[in-house]
């Protein structure tokens, strides 16, 4: 048998992080390993999630039927994200980053080089006009991807907008073997070797387990561990509060998460069935909670946010997942990404009962790198803004990471997308973000010039027309949702 297999896992905290972990472990762990969840009051789910297509793979692994999930979590479809207000000059500065790669690989050269080249000669439209997801998103239309690779619909992929409380309810149904109770953490007792000996709850119960998962919002367990210190990222990401409010639904909401830069920070609108979840991210030093409520037009739930990450998210027999491990203002539309990879990597590196320190070290390395690359995407969005409000100016003054500076310099030089080892965003996502936020390479790939200019122009025009037609033929998002009751 394996060296003393894991016999017990205790998840403290609950919420989306706790229940995604419980659901995945319930599937993966051998039947004789117990899973216990202690739900603390402060981990109750709030607000909405705007997620990447990759999360749907996770649902597949859990055996969570998408229609059931969408019903439980008031789900809607997401074809991408719209960003507006970044130039600070009204309506002109908006763009959509869609979940389908733009255009097509022409003559073995990435599409954006052909677009850059054609643009030197004349108006060929926006880059997003060549992404079916972006065009359909703007038109408020949705259709599922086609499996026929010849169909333009096969270029689509989609994510989901989910109500967090409903999502937790659906996840809970997949974790039937986990024992759940509610309780508050009174004490975390460390053994002399630095591992957690037990967690005592307010009612006196002592939780003992081979592995403790910290799914609390503030990392109460992991902060007690050696090297559990927090690395603060607030210099470049200054928002430290989220105000959440739900407003009346629109008749046909676009299948997009909408971000709008404002003086105080940024607003996010996530369409759910029966209402839009609106979030304001702001800095408490510059904007009061009351002012935030005024911006949202009424009562709002205020949640604190600490951009950054734990130096070590796995230490001894304690592993943090979710906000206890890392926090990143939800500006990329990648909610639950860090949780999904945190759980996935835990299962891939599952320790033995006495602990696997090297597996933990590898886990920490991978999670840190992934989180830094995702943070780079958010930091880039601030760096690329032309706004002159104090919060935005201050963010731009913070030096970018060396990795981001290099990545941006490479794109600016010749449209090269540098992808490091643990990237959550694919090449097309970076191209969409760079071009959308107005970063234009100085040169296109010379190999694009092989294609005669008139042929390239014709190919681009044909693609754009094809995509427009395909998008217009899709049902309205509201109707697509009715078809999936």
């Amino acid at each position, binding site marked *: 048998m394996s060296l003393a297999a894991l016999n017990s896992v205790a998840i403290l905290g609950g919420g989306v992080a706790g229940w995604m972990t419980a659901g995945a472990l319930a599937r993966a762990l*051998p039947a004789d390993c117990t899973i216990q969840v202690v739900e603390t009051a402060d981990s109750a789910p709030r607000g909405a999630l705007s997620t990447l297509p990759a999360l749907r793979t996770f649902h597949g692994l859990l055996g969570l039927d998408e229609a059931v999930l969408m019903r439980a979590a008031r789900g809607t479809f997401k074809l991408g994200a719209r960003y507006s207000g970044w130039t600070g000059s009204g309506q002109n500065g908006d763009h959509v980053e869609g979940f389908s790669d733009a255009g097509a690989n022409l003559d073995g050269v990435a599409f954006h080089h052909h677009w850059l080249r054609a643009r030197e000669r004349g108006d060929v439209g926006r880059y997003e006009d060549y992404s079916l997801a972006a065009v359909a998103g703007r038109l408020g239309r949705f259709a599922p991807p086609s499996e026929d690779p010849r169909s333009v619909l096969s270029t689509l992929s989609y994510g989901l907008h989910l109500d967090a409380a409903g999502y937790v309810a659906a996840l809970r149904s997949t974790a039937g073997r986990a024992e759940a109770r509610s309780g508050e953490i009174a004490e975390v007792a460390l053994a002399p070797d630095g591992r957690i000996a037990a967690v005592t709850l307010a009612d006196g119960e002592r939780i003992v387990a081979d592995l403790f998962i910290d799914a609390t919002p503030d990392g109460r367990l992991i902060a007690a561990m050696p090297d559990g210190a927090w690395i603060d990222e607030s210099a470049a990401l200054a928002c430290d509060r989220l105000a959440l409010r739900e407003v009346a639904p629109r008749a046909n909401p676009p299948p997009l998460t909408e971000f709008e830069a404002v003086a105080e920070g940024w607003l996010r609108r996530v369409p759910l069935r029966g209402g839009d979840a609106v979030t304001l991210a702001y800095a408490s030093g510059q904007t009061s909670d009351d002012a935030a409520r005024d911006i949202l037009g009424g009562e709002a739930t205020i949640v604190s946010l600490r951009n950054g990450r734990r130096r070590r998210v796995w230490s001894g027999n304690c592993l943090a997942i979710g906000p206890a491990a890392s926090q990143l203002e939800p500006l990329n539309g990648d909610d639950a990404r860090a949780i999904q990879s945190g759980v996935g990597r835990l299962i891939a590196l599952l*320790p033995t009962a006495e602990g696997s320190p*090297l597996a933990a070290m*590898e886990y920490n390395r991978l999670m840190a790198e992934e989180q830094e690359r995702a943070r780079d995407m958010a930091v880039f969005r601030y760096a690329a803004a032309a706004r002159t409000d104090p919060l935005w100016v201050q963010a731009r003054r913070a030096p970018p990471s060396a990795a981001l500076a290099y990545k941006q310099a490479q794109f600016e030089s*010749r449209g*090269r997308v*540098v992808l490091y*080892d643990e990237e959550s965003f694919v090449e097309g996502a970076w191209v969409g973000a760079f071009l959308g936020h107005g970063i234009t390479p100085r040169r296109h790939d010379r190999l694009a010039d092989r294609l005669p200019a008139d042929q390239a122009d014709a190919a681009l025009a044909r693609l754009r027309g094809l995509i427009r037609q395909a998008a217009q033929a899709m049902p309205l998002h509201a109707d697509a949702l009715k078809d999936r009751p």
Partner: protein
Amino acid sequence: MTDQAVRNILIVGGGTAGWMTAAALSAKLAGLPIAIRLVESAEIGTVGVGEATVPHIRHFNAALGLDEADFMRKTQATYKLGIEFRDWGKLGDSYVHPFGAYGAAIGGVGFHHHWLRARQGGDPTPLEAYSLPIQAARLGRFVPPSSDPRSLASTYSYAYQFDAGLYALYLRAYAEARGVVRTEGKVADVVLRGEDGFIEAITMENGERVEADLFIDCSGFRGLLIEQTLKAGYEDWTRWLPCDRAAAVPCDTVEPSAPYTRSIADKAGWRWRIPLQHRVGNGYVYCSDHISDDEAAAALLAGLEGKALAEPRFLRFVTGRRKKQWSKNCVAVGLSSGFLEPLESTSIHLIQVAVTTLLELFPDRGCDQADQDEYNRVMDLEFERIRDFLVLHYHATQRTDAPFWNERRTMSIPDSLAYKMDLFRERGVVVKYKDGFFLEPSWLAVYLGQNVVPRAYDPVSDSVPDAVLTQRLKAIRDSVADTTRSMPSHADWIARFCAAAPPSASGEAA
């Protein structure tokens, strides 16, 4: 933009590197007003011995549009399913590093964890019983993989063993047909531009001056442009990979050619055996501190299966990497960019990566520093990750029969490799990364083949009940055995598909 566009490229040096570069550039830059010229001297020998490759070369050939059967006939090529390593872990050991995965994941857990679990439970079946390419190699069978992803026969890949000199000739004809101009002669001088130190031109021994916007240095170990002229610097890796010489000799074929390369660990290095259609390429890569040239040549000749077809030829090298593989307007491709011994057949692969990356980052005449930086970053990673994999072969040995192996077993290794090995020993975890050539099955083959065995397997394996696991393992094993038995012999497949004519005297370019 147009006025800054590269208009002409000069490749200095032919050989495998020069002609692979010329062929790829002539194919991928076709349609652009760029002239490509190559200068080489017939007096300067090329290193090309019998050469084994990795499966990526098929992408390279496909991108050029080469006809596989024609290419194989003209280069005396055989198929390669992997490399057999003899005597590396212990004397008498044999394992094959295959071009394909072992078994298949069960319950979302990597196959090797289940195998380790069965082994801890007393099942003595070797890992290679679950590898189709290894079983086929051991039995001397070959058929191209199936394109049906559901079929077991789709789970492996293959490469070639060919005469590198003939491959260079083949690509030369290809490149010349696409407009590459070849100039015979030696380079006498290299002229630098005063203002920025870029290479302006080379002068040939006959006095001809050849200018270009972009220079590709394929001059071999000496690095005529990149080192002797631009002083790019060299990072020496001999503390980890101390072999510094090789002796090579072809011999007669005495048995049907095998679909795999063999590497035999010897007293002071290792010997290769690469079966081609018309002969077998042999060599001994050794460390001159531990054996003399004469002793090495004697050991090489003693190990030949057939009559030697020439006197042994000697090569000298320093393992390492050029600090800047792209400097100013000069890109080093092939041995001028660095040297890693051909233990895992990566020499041609590194040429391929260099040319592909150069095309991805094709510069204008200014050779933007950003292009150079990115090229050097990509190539540095590629070299380093191959280096670690090679060092693993030497370090993970239990041999105590020779001072050379005692040194390798006890040497300090790069931190990046120590980390990987420790992680594997603890829990069977193979470190994954995006860039770099060798993936999980390769690391598994060498770790387990050289007796680096994890203390524990993935606990999630226990989710699969014992009876189910036993039955699944047997099913995979049986399926591998059945599929292998149905394959034709390697010799039959070659005879049917790509039999070469017997070599003419002039065809022996290597």
